[in-house]
């Protein structure tokens, strides 16, 4: 279990109690943001319609206390909350067992605030979630100081989030060619190494049988689907509706030429 401190600067003279509306708004951003940050690292998308996987719920089961204008959040490490993630053969690449969901939330927040080229650490849906901070500032809060790194969020920061949201290109239909490097059955994610420039692209497929996966894995394929972009206009993920073997297909050549 790791403990994180969040300092809330407001005009309230009472440093031992916290407004329920404020707390609910803050916890909502923190919990949903942590779920989103985790999901983004594993699936390339922070939010999907429907309930999140059980392991994400377990990883974001936090505890808390409030004292002297400081909210202390207790978060289990991924290994404590979902040890099986690190035992199974299909383990979650990119996640460290000693990290917590809040660590990934914090990492995304830093990437956003530092305007880093690491813009694959957030997507539009995650930025929309962070706009929920506005509800906190409507409760008389001046600023929120996150964690030990001294990240400060204020009303101005939320305007910056909104600007980033507006910068993200809208999703669009694409066709791509490349080698299908990996398909994970538990969340239907895959990696495509593009032809000809060998860029790794994350994607999510429609449900496939084991047999279909075996036929396509490590082969040159053509995929078509909807591409979602980062703020810098790079592809963040593709949600496919079709993956087919290329096999010297005419269209394959055509797609490569277009790339």
């Amino acid at each position, binding site marked *: 279990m790791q403990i994180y401190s969040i300092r809330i600067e407001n005009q309230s003279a*009472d440093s*031992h*109690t*916290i*407004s*329920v*509306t404020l*707390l*609910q708004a803050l*916890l909502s951003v923190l*919990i949903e943001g942590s779920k989103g940050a985790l999901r983004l690292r594993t699936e390339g998308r922070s939010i999907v319609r429907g309930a999140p996987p059980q392991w994400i719920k377990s990883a974001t*089961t*936090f*505890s*808390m*206390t*409030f004292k002297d204008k400081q909210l*202390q*959040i*207790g978060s289990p490490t991924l290994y404590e909350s979902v040890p099986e993630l690190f035992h199974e053969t299909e383990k979650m690449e990119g996640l460290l067992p000693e990290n917590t969901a809040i660590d990934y939330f914090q990492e995304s927040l830093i990437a956003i605030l530092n305007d880093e080229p690491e813009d694959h650490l957030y997507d539009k849906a995650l930025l929309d979630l962070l706009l929920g901070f506005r509800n906190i500032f409507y409760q008389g809060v001046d600023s929120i100081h996150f964690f030990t790194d001294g990240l400060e969020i204020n009303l101005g920061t939320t305007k910056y989030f909104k600007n980033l949201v507006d910068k993200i290109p809208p999703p669009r239909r694409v066709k791509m060619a490349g080698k299908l490097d990996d398909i994970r059955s538990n969340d239907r994610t895959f990696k495509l190494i593009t032809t000809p420039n060998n860029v790794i692209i994350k994607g999510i497929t429609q449900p496939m049988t084991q047999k279909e996966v075996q036929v396509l894995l490590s082969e040159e394929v053509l995929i078509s689907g909807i591409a979602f972009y980062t703020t810098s206009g790079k592809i963040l993920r593709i949600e496919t509706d079709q993956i087919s073997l290329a096999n010297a297909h005419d269209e394959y050549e055509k797609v490569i030429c277009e790339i």
Partner: protein
Amino acid sequence: MQTYKIEIETINTDYQMISVTLLQSLLWVITEGSKGALRLCTEGRSTVRGAPPQWVKHATNFSIAFKDKKLYIQSPTLQEITPELFQQNNEFPELSSERTSLDYFQDSLAIAILSSPLSNQKVEASMSNLLYDKALLEIFYGFNKVFQQGVKSIHFLNGNGIQITPDSISIFRKLISIVPFPCQIKIVGILESIRNYDRTFNLVVNDYLLKGISKNMFSKETDTMIGKEVLVIGIAYFTSIGKILRIETDKIMIPEEREKKLWKKLPLLRAETIE
């Protein structure tokens, strides 16, 4: 400002930290339940689609602290948040300005548990049933989620000292299941008062005071009917023992002689017997 103490008995051994899921579930029941209890007192219905009136939101602006497995909730009194509602023309004679929304929440909670046929303790029949409706019981049923987080009991240490346990959940479920369905009604009674603020009215039928809500703002014509015999046509909502809790109407009119005779009697639906 009043401070309330709630003791949370859990299997967790940490006295200083509280599970966020548990806290969110508990605060949801308390906040929505307090809104509902207030609204029920004034409008005869705990929940209506859409945002609640601003004064109800203000009355449920709580602050909290947590220490030694106890949740401390601060709640403003009604006088503190909406003094204008209690000055001169007291808009809400049903409410006491020195009380808080949490007081009304605890009243409703206690009555729902103690007046249940499943309870060993009994309260006065006249008080029972009118302090909760089906929608408020459904909010109380939200305690279920609190118990799913390893909680054994929730003890409200102020006021009536009500204790909620997993058995209370069975009571709420039973009460929800026996509330009769709403039905179309025609009733003749004396229109005692109308309130334009929330479109509510009081109707006296055979010495029984009935609350009603009009779908539309009252017309000038309705104003002239105060103190007179009127015919109300609408949908009746019932308590768990089958008494009318409120009528939601779109028509209040002067009845004809024939209608006066026909619609004078209050229907009493027979609620399903609790085993």
